[in-house]
């Protein structure tokens, strides 16, 4: 293998009791690569991320293999995993408002991570934290480092979170909807920062979002998740220009653009009929079949695997009819 993988996931199943939120997911993010994981709420994309981090809620179990840095993370003890979390694999969460310790100064929170993993003194860790804050384009870092989370803005908090995630030059950063909770005006800045900073540090990025344009702008490959499975996987350009799965196509068609949005009610904005099925009532065969325009009896009875088309579909969308590319 010429390029080692930052992470390789093989047949990951995540569930609690009899229910599975993730049902046999496989993908790999090459070192320094950037992959997007797309799907609606409830598709299992966040559970996949938590399984990679070994931070599943109590009672949840992960099976399969998660290969990272030469080991299978799923076989490690909590202690062994802890020494990797924040060092070789780290994560940026959705809600920066509640993700920082409210009673600790933000500079100290960054320094804590460096001190924990890099074997440097507190003083050195603190100096590095200030350095990082400067690189995160945070204004007056020395002063801001002494602030408590409630004293700074949401965008600043997310920059602090990114600084914490990047502090130890991890091989992989997982970003789970990192801008969803932010104002639209700062979303782009934070994404740009995340993009540039991960590239500078040679960190691979696994970007989890339901925002297709973000994936199109930042990622090399994309995997589309539906009901706990990856239904389409491939290079971003290919998947977005010529989607082969009807769900991917539906997602792309439901993206608002200047052309398909109209305020007079004649909107041509498309939506996928029906809803994401709940975990306890997954349809047989291809889980998407009740909402699929091309479903046949075969789709109802047997579950398709991803094939040469890059999609897990018995009746892939013909290539001759490209969908509108994501803007």
């Amino acid at each position, binding site marked *: 293998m010429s390029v080692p993988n930052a992470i390789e996931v093989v047949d990951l199943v995540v569930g609690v009791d009899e229910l599975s939120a993730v049902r046999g997911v496989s993908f790999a993010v090459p070192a320094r690569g950037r992959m997007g994981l797309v799907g609606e709420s409830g598709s299992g994309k966040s559970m996949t991320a938590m399984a990679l981090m070994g931070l599943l809620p109590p009672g949840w179990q992960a099976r399969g293999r998660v290969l990272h840095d030469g080991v299978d993370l799923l076989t490690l003890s909590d202690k062994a995993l802890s020494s990797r979390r924040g060092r070789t694999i780290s994560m940026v969460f959705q809600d920066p408002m509640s993700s920082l*310790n409210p009673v600790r100064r933000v500079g100290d929170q960054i320094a804590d991570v460096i001190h924990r993993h890099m074997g440097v003194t507190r003083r050195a860790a603190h100096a590095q934290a200030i350095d990082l804050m400067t690189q995160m384009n945070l204004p007056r870092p020395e002063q801001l480092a002494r602030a408590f989370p409630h004293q700074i803005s949401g965008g600043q908090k997310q920059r602090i979170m990114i600084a914490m995630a990047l502090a130890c030059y991890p091989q992989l950063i997982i970003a789970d909807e990192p801008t969803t909770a932010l104002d639209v005006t700062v979303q782009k800045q934070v994404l740009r920062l995340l993009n540039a900073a991960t590239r500078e540090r040679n960190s691979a990025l696994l970007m989890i979002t339901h925002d297709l344009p973000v994936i199109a702008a930042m990622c090399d490959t994309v995997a589309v998740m539906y009901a706990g499975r990856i239904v389409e996987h491939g290079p971003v350009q290919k998947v977005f220009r010529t989607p082969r799965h009807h769900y991917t196509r539906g997602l792309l068609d439901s993206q608002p653009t200047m052309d398909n949005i109209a305020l007079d009610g004649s909107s041509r904005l498309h939506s996928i009929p029906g809803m994401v099925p709940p975990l306890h009532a997954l349809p047989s065969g291809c889980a998407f079949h009740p909402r699929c325009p091309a479903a046949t009896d075969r789709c109802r009875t047997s579950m398709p695997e991803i094939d040469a088309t890059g999609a897990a579909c018995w009746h892939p969308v013909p290539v001759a009819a490209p969908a509108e590319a994501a803007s």
Partner: protein
Amino acid sequence: MPVYIARKLAFFLLAVFAASVLIFLLIRGAGGNVAAVILGKDATAEAINALSRQYGLDRPLPVQYFDWIGNLFRGDLGRSFRTNEPVTDLVVSRLSISIPLCLSGLVLGLLIAIPAGTYSALNSDKPVGALIALLSQVGIAVPVFWAGILLSLLFGVRLGWLPTGGWTNWDSNFWGAVRSLVLPVISLGLILGASLTRYVRSAVLDVMNQDYVRTARATGMTRMQALLRVGLRNAALPIATVVGLQIAELIGGTVIIETVFSLPGLSRMILANVAAREVIVVQSTVMLIIVFVMLVNLIVDLLYGVLDPRVRLTR
């Protein structure tokens, strides 16, 4: 922080003043003429008047009030009507029992509640967590006097390890005094610990589900480190509040426990003085307890400022 301290201090002084006025008026208002209350229903009018004059009870209320408060500030709690002893001397010797009893009970309660509540929260999905929660419920339901009697029966009567009651002075027999306090402290501590366990459990459960604990774990803390460094630090805020509120209940518990174990503490002295209609003594000692409770709550408030930067920096 200085503004916060000043505000809390001002509030404390105001509350103490309000409480003193209230106590003073309640005592005056409850029985009508204080001298008549002291002397009982068979007293003659001359006797009542004589007593009123002797103790200045015929003066206008504001004069009486400020006289009382002024004396309190000088450490003079008044004199007993019957024995003419200065109350202050009595109170000091009684406090040498009540304060160690109260504080040790509080410390024991916390020593029980913090580990038990935390352990129960971390194992909330296992039988042992449910068992601790159940035991805590039982502890809340058991009255403190019942706990005292049971302990006294077991360790005092059956096993004979500790005295079932009574008191020897600190000076004459230090270890004897300690031994006399063991069972009362355990009774108070167990009962207080039981109710605090429930609050600790819910505070820890709440905190451990917070996003910032997940962040702590995602940046490399083990479950135990995240609990000790981030979880308990944040859970300390609601726990401190509850401890402040429980102080009043704890003092109520000492009244009962001092009676059960025949300890000559302050609470029992108040009870005896109420029965003996020693109005001025009751007024002064109750005021003393109120100041103590408010002082503890002031300390809790100040502690809150230390623990929580949001409190310290925004208010």
